[in-house]
């Protein structure tokens, strides 16, 4: 009981196949991978603001996963709802933007042109704008600067 046993990694990583109990309402998980999510990130922030803030405040009270399941379900439903709407209305611009992100290490800076097209389409069809929280009042947000100093990395 006082001896040291070094841990070994298991050769079979542990997967828990049991689903959640039936008492918890089922919600479909978000199926978008990282590049489309990054592309849609600011629009999720604009569209789902109340649900996201509810969830963050709930987590701030108690980090236990069981405490915030309801707010989490609302966040998931809102995100899947918005991604369906984006695909329905602005599919070309959305795909162009996240494909551009994917070849550029998922940085926003090299992909401003597709991003402007996507922002325009989202504003016209769904009325959502991208705002960067925490921008100083007089300063132009970086995604609206016409000729930024830093461009993309030389390939």
């Amino acid at each position, binding site marked *: 009981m006082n001896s040291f*046993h*070094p*841990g*070994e*990694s*298991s050769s079979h*990583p*542990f*997967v*828990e*196949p*049991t*689903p*959640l109990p039936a008492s918890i309402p089922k919600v*479909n*998980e*978000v*199926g*978008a*991978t*990282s*590049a*489309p*999510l990054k592309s849609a990130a600011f629009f999720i922030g604009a569209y789902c603001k109340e649900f996201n803030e509810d969830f963050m405040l709930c987590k701030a009270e108690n980090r236990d996963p069981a405490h915030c399941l309801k707010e989490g379900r609302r966040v998931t439903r809102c995100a*899947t*709802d918005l*991604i*369906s709407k984006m*695909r329905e209305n602005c599919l070309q611009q*959305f*795909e162009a933007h*996240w494909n551009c992100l*994917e*070849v*550029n*290490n*998922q940085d926003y800076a090299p992909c401003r042109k597709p991003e402007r097209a996507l922002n325009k389409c989202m504003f016209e069809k769904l009325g959502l704008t991208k705002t960067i929280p925490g921008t100083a009042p007089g300063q132009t947000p970086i995604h609206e600067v016409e000729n930024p100093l830093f461009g993309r990395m030389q*390939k």
Partner: protein
Amino acid sequence: MPVPWEALIPFGLVTAMFGAAGTLLNPPRYHIDSWEEMMMDRDQRLTGHARKQTSNPIAPEGFETNSVWYAERTQ
């Protein structure tokens, strides 16, 4: 005297290969922090490859339960 143009073929080949590697193939991800690792792991669970992307709103059927827990065996 004729120009030894055959000697310039390797330069052309090397330039073409560098250009192709930079543009045609998917460039590798760099500056990957723990968040990016977690997201790439999630991408792998969703699509089967770490770099393959999809924008389906709903996840496929087994996604809720296929997350891997990295455990270690101690006596």
